[in-house]
């Protein structure tokens, strides 16, 4: 067999495996790499293949290192990404993250994966230009590996274990790093409880995303007003049934706030205090069935001018800095019962 023939045979074999994986319902619809014993072994490296990282519902599949590695291979991960995938699965299996609700829910609940600390640069998780994707192998394949674990280990397949009404591109892959140009200490340190220089992964539920465009505000309060406006628009699910957002600030926006003396915590508190949705925005059925039942603390403010917050506290707001030059940030709403969880990488 010539080298060209051999290459063609290999390509045919990959195409054949893709068809097989679709038939077995292992694929998300995009091509996957065959999880051969050799590739899975390389992915696992020195870890114990039988170590159980967690149990993924609704199928209650055992997320062993070996099975997670098979999904990481299929997603296209390189072995050096694997400690991040492992930490992400451990974090996602923490009951606070609420996988038992997140995977079957009819809501479009993406699994956001934030990578903090030196591991990001070491393995190439992008926190700069186009960090939310596409275009970077580590970002795309780590996020996809986590999602394939939900599908294959957790049994989250369309109209079976995953009942998402419309789905969302967030359900393919959503993984990014913090910007090295952030004016604030890392999220992993300030919110995740890591020590400086320690690498971590944070998982968060990603419901809907909105781009926040403001190229002109140099006054921190005017810029925050733009964030408040953007969040108030997408906050309706969180206002109806609770929880706060992930705000992914671009470095330019973060610097305007930092230069005026705002810490991350100040921004989170400001957003909590100012993102308030008038009760009058909701029809009486939603007020009766959701706001009063699910947000009882606020339900006694029954006048139409009553203003209901996203979340119950500033701690339910998360500010992270990511992306390249330009004045575009994102705000991402969350699932009501799913709370962000941070785990150290390689611990």
């Amino acid at each position: 067999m010539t080298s060209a023939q051999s290459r063609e045979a290999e390509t045919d074999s990959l195409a054949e495996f893709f068809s097989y994986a679709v038939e077995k319902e292992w694929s998300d619809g995009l091509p996957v790499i065959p999880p051969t014993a050799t590739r899975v072994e390389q992915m696992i490296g020195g870890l114990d293949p039988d170590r159980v990282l967690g149990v993924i519902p609704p199928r209650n599949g055992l997320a062993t290192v070996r099975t997670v590695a098979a999904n990481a291979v299929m997603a296209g991960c390189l072995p050096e990404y694997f400690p991040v995938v492992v930490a992400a699965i451990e974090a996602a299996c923490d009951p606070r993250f609420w996988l038992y609700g997140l995977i079957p829910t009819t809501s479009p609940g993406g699994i956001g994966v934030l990578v903090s600390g030196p591991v990001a640069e070491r393995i190439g998780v992008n926190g700069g230009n186009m960090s939310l994707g596409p275009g970077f192998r580590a970002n795309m394949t780590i996020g996809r590996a986590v999602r394939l674990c939900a599908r294959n280990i957790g049994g989250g397949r369309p109209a079976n274990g995953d009942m998402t009404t419309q789905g969302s591109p967030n359900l393919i892959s959503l993984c990014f790093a913090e910007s090295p140009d952030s004016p604030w200490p890392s999220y992993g340190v300030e919110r995740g409880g890591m020590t400086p220089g320690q690498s971590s992964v944070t998982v968060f539920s990603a419901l809907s995303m909105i781009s926040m465009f403001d190229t002109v505000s140099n006054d921190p309060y005017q810029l925050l007003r733009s964030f408040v406006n953007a969040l108030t628009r997408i906050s309706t699910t969180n206002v109806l049934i609770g929880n706060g957002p992930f705000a992914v600030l671009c470095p330019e926006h973060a610097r305007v706030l930092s230069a005026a003396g705002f810490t991350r915590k100040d921004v989170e508190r400001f957003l909590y205090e100012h993102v308030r949705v008038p009760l009058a925005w909701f029809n009486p059925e939603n007020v009766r069935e959701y706001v009063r039942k699910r947000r009882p603390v606020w339900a006694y403010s029954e006048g139409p001018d009553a203003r209901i917050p996203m979340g119950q506290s500033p701690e339910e707001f998360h500010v992270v800095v990511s992306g390249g030059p330009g004045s575009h940030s994102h705000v991402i709403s969350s699932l009501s019962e799913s709370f962000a969880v941070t785990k150290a990488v390689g611990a």
Partner: protein
Amino acid sequence: MTYLPLDTLVSPEGDIASRDKKLNPGLQTVAGARIMLLDNTKSNSDVLFDLLEKYLLEMGASTVTRRVKSTAGKPAAAHVLAEVRDMDAVVAGVGDCGSCSSWTIHDVLAAEGLGIPSVGVVSDWFKHLAALEFSAAGVADPASRIVVVPHPFGNLSDEEVAAFADKLAVDVITGLTSQPRL
């Protein structure tokens, strides 16, 4: 032509954690039984359970205890499960979305774990999810313990709910008196 050695592939699905849950024998009859209706707060669950309560009392249930969860998105609280121990049967629901159906089945399995035969009420679109969750827990044949209402459910009028409430009540009693295959 096959190039791929399928026998060397590592399954991306892996094993299931544990399949140790069993359903309890059903009631002989609802007559004389103490029954809890566990309302998950979803719209119309209260309307349906009002009608179900009336029916169960007419059929001779000794007591019908109504409890409402704080949210459809979480398991029943510990103090509610403590009360479940003093019941003869539990009806949980109504699951009419993915997460609230999951937590309905979670509550049913928790009550069964306490030795109390239970049924979960879900809307039609979620019956396969419910079956998957029973199966993941080790219950291969849960059919009679999943009781189905039409989907969509939450936006029906009281009259529309009343139209199938009698059938629902019969299905609930069938479920609670069914003897699972062991």
